[in-house]
């Protein structure tokens, strides 16, 4: 018998602290597998966010830095400018990237920083206990939107991929999901393309991964996958918004 699937060497042995069924674990694994398969682990420097993934530096087997909330793209900019040949990635949630870090991500994309951002979108603030995120859906309840998000008061959820895809130096932008095995496989392909584009020096790359938060959605892990498919995908359509082939 041959081994067809085992834990990648790009992940440490430390068990994940995430809630049962949290898709952070899947996404960490996909990123790590891509780094191993592209032979990048030894020259990778990752930047961890503030959010549930704040301890991400314990799980990836490469150099990691922790950034202040929302500032990961700025830290990554400094890292990549000093280490132009490194594979630099940021791993950010929807609060980190789309709320407090909205300026930093836009400007990293504007400058075409040759980094890869993994954007974990679960439509809620996980670590701080379930407050509204910029990506929280209309009618969805959160602790700071106890009556449900109302468009007149709080606007409509932010579609980060579509928005960043308008920036010329954001050369690879794709939205994927991890709610079933087929989509997990597609997500990994997108993450791989993103890192490849970075290493080819093409520009800023981002993969938005639709994810679950069973704890703050108040659902079981299995129910959460369904909720993602039925509610998030209609508003956050999957697909590629910017591909390096288009870039002159």
């Amino acid at each position, binding site marked *: 018998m041959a081994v067809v699937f085992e834990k990648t060497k790009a992940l440490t042995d430390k068990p994940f602290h995430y809630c049962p069924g949290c898709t952070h674990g899947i996404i960490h694994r996909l990123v790590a597998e891509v780094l191993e398969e592209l032979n990048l682990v030894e020259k990778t420097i990752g930047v961890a966010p503030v959010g549930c993934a704040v301890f991400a530096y314990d799980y990836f087997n490469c150099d990691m830095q922790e950034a202040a909330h929302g500032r990961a793209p700025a830290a990554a900019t400094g890292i990549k400018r000093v280490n132009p040949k490194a594979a630099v990635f940021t791993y950010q949630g929807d*609060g980190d990237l789309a709320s*407090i870090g909205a300026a930093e991500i836009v400007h990293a994309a504007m400058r075409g920083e040759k980094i890869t951002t993994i954007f974990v979108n679960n439509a809620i603030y996980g670590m*701080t206990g379930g*407050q509204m995120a910029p990506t929280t859906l209309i009618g969805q309840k959160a602790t*700071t939107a*106890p*009556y449900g998000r109302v468009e007149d008061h709080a606007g409509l959820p932010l579609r980060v991929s579509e928005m960043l895809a308008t920036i010329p130096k954001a050369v690879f932008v794709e939205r994927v999901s991890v709610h079933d095995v087929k989509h997990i496989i597609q997500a990994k392909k997108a993450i791989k393309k993103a890192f490849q584009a970075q290493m080819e020096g093409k520009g800023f790359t981002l993969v938005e991964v639709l994810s679950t938060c069973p704890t703050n959605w108040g659902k079981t892990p299995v129910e959460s996958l369904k909720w993602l498919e039925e509610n998030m995908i209609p508003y956050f359509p999957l697909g590629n918004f910017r591909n390096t082939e288009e870039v002159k």
Partner: protein
Amino acid sequence: MAKELWKGNEAIAEAAIKAGCRFFFGYPITPQNEIPEYMAMKMPQIDGGCFLQAESEVAAINMVYGAAGSGARVMTSSSSPGISLKQEGITYIAGAELPCVIVNIVRGGPGLGGIQPAQSDYFQACKGGGHGDYRLVVLAPASVQEAVDLVQEAFDIADQYRNPVMILGDGMIGQMMEPVEFTEVKKRKLPGKPWATVGTKGERSGNVINSLFIDPAECEKHNFKLFEKYSEIEKNETKVETYNMEGAEIVFVAYGTTSRIVKNAINALAKDGIKAGIIRPITLWPYPQKAIAEAAEQASVKAFLTVEMSMGQMVEDVRLAVNGKKPVHFYGRTGGMIPTPKAIVEEAKKILGGAK
């Protein structure tokens, strides 16, 4: 009115609403999330109430600035790292002489630090934090009831002097549940706000809310004006509590929840025949220098022991006030570790040269 059991953070939010606060801008950060969450629930039920979760603490303090400049009673809350983010906005509010209330539920630092209680933001609150010559009125509650009373008074102090006021709590004040009675805090006679930007209505020239004085003579004049105001505040608003000071051999200085732990130590020392007292600053700025200077002249007093949940910040102000007359010692735990009465008793005995 009956006493009710309230969680500190929620009581602080309710107190603000009772004081007439109608605008709250904040951002999630542990351990103060119940403040914005309570505001999110209550403000929509109040006529003219507005809660908004900003995209960051930086954005939140700038929303406060705009609302304050338009004459509103407005508040924000955060915890240590978030308060660091607000520093630029805070100096703008102070420089533009705008009233507002800022709540800091202090956690371990520096940097991302920890989420447990600490008192390591004293320097930040009282010695600047932001750039330029300005002061915050800093109020330090030691219980949820006191937090409720001080929050209500904070809005009046802010309006009376046109200055930002900070409530310096800690993770324990925020997370504890204690009995609270919401009483009507004595209302002050407050000036109107003809300076606010509400539209000229054709009745006057335009108001400008800013902190820029590009002519250096004007800028200096403005700074002198601010400091005349700060003199007034020092004269009128200093608050301090003393306990068991008569015949005290050792004088503790502590604030906030730490003062309650010290009081336990004082009672334990009394059982061992050691007379210990405490001076508890309630306003950290203006600082009760007078009470400490007077205690330093007290014949029975052999030494001061400052106890803080930090590496020693307020102790510097104690030393300044004691002015070399008696030795000043420090004992602290930090990072979220809480000092115990037992350790404080041992420290006091060590200073006094062993148990009696």
